[in-house]
């Protein structure tokens, strides 16, 4: 049983008024779900719960003023490793400001239940080399028990000589075979009306110089990143029978090389970017990929993969997950297609977005939630800025 306490929503906040409960006793709740509205000097703010579980008891009546830290509800948790509620789960808030913002963007501080600590086994020499390469051992997932120097060898090859086609093919083949063998995939898709987003983008670009032009790919990646921020379960790894959620969102972007071959380097810390910096970083990443100037961390730190085969003309792509990731997002070519709006039949720019998920880590519900968020975000493109 854990207590859901009044979070601190600002440095100077001492108390707030619990205005309304959005759940009732007995309701199942999910991590990230908004369960109440509170009123502070800054306005009405929706507060989220940090764990999955069931609302056991609501401790505070609506329209009650409570100081920060006051227990508001009891949550009965189901399943694994729930620690005692500690002060630190409350002091930094996970808050989504729903009021229209002027200066602040939606702040999402990743504060999840501490996952069971999984120590990656690696030899001292391998640990040191990984550090030198800037590689997080968690992303290596070796097939044997302990990571040794030779397991890092393939990475230094990539850095020194750039991926050779044969080497790449082999690596891809190996990863894909393993993926197919080990990962139970589930597949979901959604058709997204891209007309508003593309119109908005066209409008935006027309007011900017060519140097600040944003391409649809950047917009899509931005939307995926924001959707992942809301459904973080898809952004992480399956390692030693454990689901590890990555704090950083490092989407691996599938980039075709001119000589043939496909590589998916990571756009590191995409969660820190806005639309402009996403475009700039993406441009830089593609340029360096083609020039063979990728960093070790970019080759190893992907927390999820986005494959956008739109340029090649496929309408829908169900990707194969790259282990140890737990998801891959596919974005198809945007085509003119019939679209129903109310009773009328019209034509819109439509894109098929797909999600392949690792069923050990998440289920269709999570995947569907993600695709829904993605769709919603692309219907409100101004929020992607």
């Amino acid at each position, binding site marked *: 049983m854990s207590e859901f306490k009044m979070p601190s929503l600002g440095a100077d906040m001492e108390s707030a008024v619990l205005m309304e409960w959005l759940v009732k006793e007995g309701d199942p709740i999910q991590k990230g779900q908004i369960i109440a509205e509170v009123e502070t000097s800054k306005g009405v703010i929706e507060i989220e719960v940090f764990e999955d579980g069931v609302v056991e008891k609501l401790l505070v009546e609506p329209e009650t003023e409570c100081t920060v830290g006051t227990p508001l509800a009891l949550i009965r948790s189901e399943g694994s490793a729930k620690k005692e509620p500690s002060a630190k789960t409350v002091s930094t808030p996970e808050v989504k400001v729903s009021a229209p913002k002027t200066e602040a963007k939606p702040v999402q501080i990743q504060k999840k239940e501490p996952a069971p600590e999984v120590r990656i086994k690696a*030899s*001292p*020499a391998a640990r*040191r080399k990984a550090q030198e390469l800037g590689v997080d051992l968690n992303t290596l997932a070796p097939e*044997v*028990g*302990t990571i*040794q*120097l030779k397991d890092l060898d393939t990475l230094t090859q990539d850095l020194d000589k750039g991926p050779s086609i044969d080497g790449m093919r082999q690596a891809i083949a190996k990863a894909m075979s393993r993926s197919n063998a080990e990962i139970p995939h589930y597949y979901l898709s959604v058709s997204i009306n891209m007309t508003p987003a593309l119109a908005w983008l066209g409008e935006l670009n027309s007011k900017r110089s060519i140097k600040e032009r944003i391409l649809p790919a950047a917009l899509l990646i931005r939307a995926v990143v924001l959707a992942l921020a809301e459904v973080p379960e898809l952004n992480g790894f399956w390692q030693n029978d454990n689901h590890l959620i990555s704090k950083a969102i490092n989407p691996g972007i599938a980039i075709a090389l001119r000589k043939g071959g496909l590589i998916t380097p990571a756009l590191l810390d995409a969660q820190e970017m806005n639309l402009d910096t996403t475009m700039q970083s993406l441009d830089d990443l593609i340029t360096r990929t083609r020039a063979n100037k990728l960093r070790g961390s970019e080759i190893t730190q992907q927390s999820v993969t986005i494959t956008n085969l739109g340029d090649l003309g496929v309408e829908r792509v169900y990707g194969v997950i790259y282990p140890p990731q737990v998801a891959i997002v596919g974005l198809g070519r945007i085509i003119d297609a019939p679209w129903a709006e109310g009773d009328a039949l019209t034509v819109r720019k439509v894109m098929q977005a797909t999600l392949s998920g690792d069923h050990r880590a998440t289920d269709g519900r999570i995947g569907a939630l993600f695709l829904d968020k993605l769709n919603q975000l692309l219907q409100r493109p101004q929020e992607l800025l």
Partner: protein
Amino acid sequence: MNEHISYREAVKESIKKSMQDDERVFMMGEDVGRYGGCFAVSMGLQEVFGPERIIDTPLSESAFTGAGIGAALNGMRPIVEIMTANFSLLALDQIMNNAATLLHMSGGQFNVPLVIRMATGGGKQLAAQHSHSFEGWFAHIPGLKILTPATVQDAYDMVTLALADPNPVLIFENPLLYNTKGPLNTSTSPLPIGKALVHRSGKDLSILSYGINLSKALEAAEALETEGIDAEVIDLRSLRPLDDEAIIQSIKKTHRVIIVDEGWKSGSISAEIMARINEQAFFDLDAPMQRVCTTEVPLPYAKHLEDAAIPQPEKIIEMARKLMEEI
């Protein structure tokens, strides 16, 4: 002199030369004179140098070791031969509490330039009381130097080096080496005490050895080569002081190590070396350190049991294969 002679001959020639060059040098021990030495090392020397310089002592290790210490304190350069390291136990107090400590206890006034030579090791079916390998044990004591010549060259050089040292030096000779032959070059200056020697360069793992274990290690390395494992083999040469630098340099290159030590593993020189590698090269290790030591039993008399107890090339090979596997 540049020739191919036996280990035994090399020791004898070195003692002979030292005695010829320096009249302070003399030899004392059980059966070293008339009998020519239990292992025939000093055969013929009494005829050359006389009974006052090649002295037959009574069966009293404590007494004659003490006498040697006294002689050294008084300006002589004695070579005390304790027949085997097994009997050194009877002279332990003299060695540890006098030879090793008088320099310190006299505030630096008195050096004890004593050389003690002892036969060491098992493998000759001499059973529990007569098969000890104590060189690692003695290496625990500050004030002593411990040498373990493995080659004919070192059999010669280490006597010279020991006599030149103003402080006590213990030389451990494995009798199974006495008949082995090898090259000897007396024109080059000897490799100093405290310097290990790489006998075989390799990149996959380092095998550290001393004394009789060197030849076992080299034999194992040759066999491993046919399996595609490239082993580096190092002769430690002295167990006190240890050549930390050479050991660490090797580990940095290969990232894996096996130590071959005929002592029992508990509290042994192999344990000490592992501790030093941990202290100085932890982050260079790609796999746990390993060692091949004598099984923790008093050494058996029966040949097949004794052979099974002490380090053998097969055991080193087996250990190396395991070390190279994925962990």
